[in-house]
């Protein structure tokens, strides 16, 4: 019964969730009936198992294993029901009511009810250590109407909330765990997700078991789930061959070798976009023509072919094809044109070229190639390598590095993406300025319901303004390359966080 309602809503949301619910999507061999086994995933471990103190956007994949939110994202990154079976907005969009599934519990046995949801969301908004507080700032009040009804009153109209709550921001944490040992959540998460954590060794492994109380437990097949860091390029193939990993994220360089060895490889479109962050308040980048010259001087196709071995798509905007925010009119926004770059540079007052410093955490590969490409247009790049551990501090917080090679991991809601990339507090907007037109366009997204027929065009209008006025140099979309042993069924093709509904593993204990 729950399944039927779920399917109906899934169909409304684009039908893609239906595939996941049926187990293994197009892979007819698995049939979705096999339960048991252990799935070992070579991916990444978390900065913290507490969703509100986790400091890396990437953590959402691992945290989704142990936590569930009111909503989750389907394969196309649309919010669909999770802990809440449905929701409705008030007429003016300033209040939204979520209806929880009844009888659910956290992995510590306490009930997932309206009070728990209220406490968890308020903790995310009000806790001193919360890194998701900004996302929840628009919450005026969370009201537990009855045990299974939560009403969220907003400070202003915000139709993005169901999407925002599908990520780390909306992961519901057991209030009992918070009361007894809040700090301990960083290593001992208590949620209502598909799995529960049994043991965890930071930077090494996390071992989880299936949580029977998960609302969609019928679609979670493996009994055990183990999480490891992604393998190095040199060991990717061996880790699959030896069976140390069943599913592994592999570098594009290993694609052919892994395929040739008989493993299945899925190239899953993702929101991850390679980008050069530019601070347009610092010379020489304060001259828009210099930034434009850089945008035209980069040969993105060559980057994809060399650095990514042809995997990935040239992109001039923060959203990949297939995402609501992807504006088709921007598909060739800044074509590779050395002559034009030189001309722009001359117009900017640098006829003899210009010297800039490109900061990176690992110079090998993309930065070296960008350096060589820009040199052809007269932009002489000096590479500066800073340790990964200092990158956040130096680039995002001190804003001491005006030109930085970065990767945007994507966000649940396009509004969040706009905030991070272009907002006045946006980490990847080192200039911390943006034009009023962009603010208005983003405000318009917030005020447009997701099912409004104009929604996509409203988002795309904002994308256009951002790409044309902001200095970020978008390069290409990076698909997620997941290789798997043949005993694991096909994985879902999730744009945002990878999920494992319907995935089976056989002959593996």
């Amino acid at each position, binding site marked *: 019964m729950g399944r039927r309602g779920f399917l109906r809503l899934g169909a409304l949301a684009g039908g893609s969730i239906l595939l996941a619910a049926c187990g293994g999507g197009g892979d007819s061999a698995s049939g979705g009936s096999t339960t048991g086994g252990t799935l070992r995933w070579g991916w990444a471990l978390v900065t913290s198992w507490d969703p509100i103190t986790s400091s890396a956007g990437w953590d959402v994949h691992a945290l989704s294993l142990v936590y569930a939110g009111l909503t989750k994202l389907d394969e196309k990154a649309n919010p669909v029901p999770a802990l809440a079976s449905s929701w409705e907005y008030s007429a003016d969009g300033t209040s939204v009511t979520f209806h929880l599934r009844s009888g659910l519990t956290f992995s510590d046995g306490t009930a997932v009810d309206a009070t728990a949801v209220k406490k968890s969301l308020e903790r995310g908004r009000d806790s001193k250590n919360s890194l998701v507080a900004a996302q929840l700032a628009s919450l005026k009040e969370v009201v537990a109407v009855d045990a299974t009804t939560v009403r969220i009153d907003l400070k202003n109209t915000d139709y993005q909330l169901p999407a925002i709550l599908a990520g780390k921001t909306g992961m519901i944490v057991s209030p009992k765990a918070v009361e007894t040992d809040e700090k301990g959540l960083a290593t001992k998460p208590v949620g209502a997700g598909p799995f529960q954590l049994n043991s965890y060794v930071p930077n090494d492994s996390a071992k989880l078991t299936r949580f029977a109380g998960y609302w969609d437990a019928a679609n979670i097949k493996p009994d055990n789930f183990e999480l490891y860091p992604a393998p*190095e*390029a*040199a060991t990717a*193939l061996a880790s699959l061959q030896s069976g140390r990993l069943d599913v592994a994220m592999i*570098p594009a*360089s*290993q694609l*052919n*070798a892994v395929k040739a060895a008989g493993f299945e490889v899925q190239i899953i479109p993702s929101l991850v976009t390679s980008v050069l962050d530019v601070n347009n308040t610092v010379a020489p980048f304060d001259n828009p023509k210099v930034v434009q010259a850089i945008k035209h001087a980069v*040969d993105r196709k*060559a980057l994809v*072919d*060399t650095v990514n071995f042809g995997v990935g798509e040239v992109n001039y905007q923060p959203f990949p094809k297939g995402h609501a925010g992807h504006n088709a009119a921007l598909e060739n926004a800044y074509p590779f044109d050395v002559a034009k770059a030189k001309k722009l540079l001359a117009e900017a007052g640098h006829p003899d070229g210009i010297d800039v410093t490109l900061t990176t955490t*690992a*110079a*090998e*590969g993309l*930065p*070296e*190639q960008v*350096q*060589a490409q820009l040199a052809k247009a007269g932009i002489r790049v000096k*590479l*500066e*390598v*800073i*340790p990964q551990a*200092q990158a956040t501090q130096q680039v995002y917080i001190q804003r001491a590095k005006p030109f930085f090679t970065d990767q945007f991991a994507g966000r649940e809601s396009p509004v969040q993406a706009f905030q991070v990339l272009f907002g006045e507090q946006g980490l990847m907007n080192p200039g911390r300025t943006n034009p009023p037109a962009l603010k208005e366009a983003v405000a318009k997204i917030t005020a447009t319901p997701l099912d409004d027929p104009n929604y996509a065009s409203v988002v795309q209008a904002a994308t256009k303004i951002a790409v044309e006025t902001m200095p970020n140099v978008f390069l290409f979309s990076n698909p997620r390359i997941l290789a798997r042993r043949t005993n694991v069924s096909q994985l879902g093709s999730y744009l945002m966080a990878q999920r494992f509904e319907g995935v089976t593993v056989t002959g593996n204990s």
Partner: protein
Amino acid sequence: MSVLRRMIRLRSVRLALLVLAVVAVLAVAGGSLAPQDPIAQDPKAILQNPSGAHWLGTDYLGRDVLSRLMDATGRSVVGAAEAVGVGLLLGAPAGLASVVFGRAFEWLALRISDALLTLPYIIFAIAVTGIIGNGIHQAMLAIGLVLAPNYFRITRAATLGLASSQYVEIAELVGASRWWILRTHIWNKVLPTIVVTAASGAAASLLVVSSLSFLGIGTKPPAPTWGGMLSSDLNYLAQRPWAPLAPSLVIIITVAALNALADALRDTTGIVTGDPGRSGRARGSDSADTAETSSAATANSAVTAGSAVATSSAATATATGSVETTTAATSSIPRQKREVSDV
């Protein structure tokens, strides 16, 4: 000098000198001798196998590997020389001085050297570059600092043996100044020991330079180093499985030449830089911590603690046997005495 003549008669020495001569030429003019531009990229010809156009193939950005190897020589060798230079400059004079210039200085120098001995090479270099900036000179300064206690210990051990010899005591009795004794009786006899240590130290430093660029510390891409090339080749084993051989062989051959020279120097001068049984065993073992710190033993100066040049890096493992345990133990003192009595 007869030592040199005796050395040059050895085939291993001639071969080593030849290798080092080639390395020296490449170090000075590698970039200009290279057949192609070592940093010119060709995205259409990445990771290619050896061919007429690229004798050793191309790397992940389509750059000519042979040209890069040649161009990398200078950077790799100068880095090693810097580290050894800093180590010698800080260690050797202090080692001499610790014997000659009184108790207070001796105590202080020993404690500082003990403290430095506890620092692991690579981690210290990473910390230093993190603080004073990521560059080859900063990294090598750090490595030199960590190398210094080895030179200090070995110089001190050799000097101690000489300082208690009868002719030095006689010189003291007849009123020779400390400086005169140092210059006349000690310095020239300690020098060969230091040279041997420096040679094996240079070999170790070459490996450290390589392992540091392996970790992305020191030189910055696109400028190539041997270690940097080795490290990036490992990421493309599927495309070019033999590729890491080229930079590894260059490192191994250079290190081997330096070691051959050091061995020959030791053999021809009769200076024992290690109990043969012990150093034989230490060779080939990659135990990271052979550095002994026995302050009790050094205090009564009967036994001098040996120190070992060993790094815990991956590169060490590729060239095991090259990093030599140089121990100036009690056994070296009688030998030196014998040599002295021959004079």
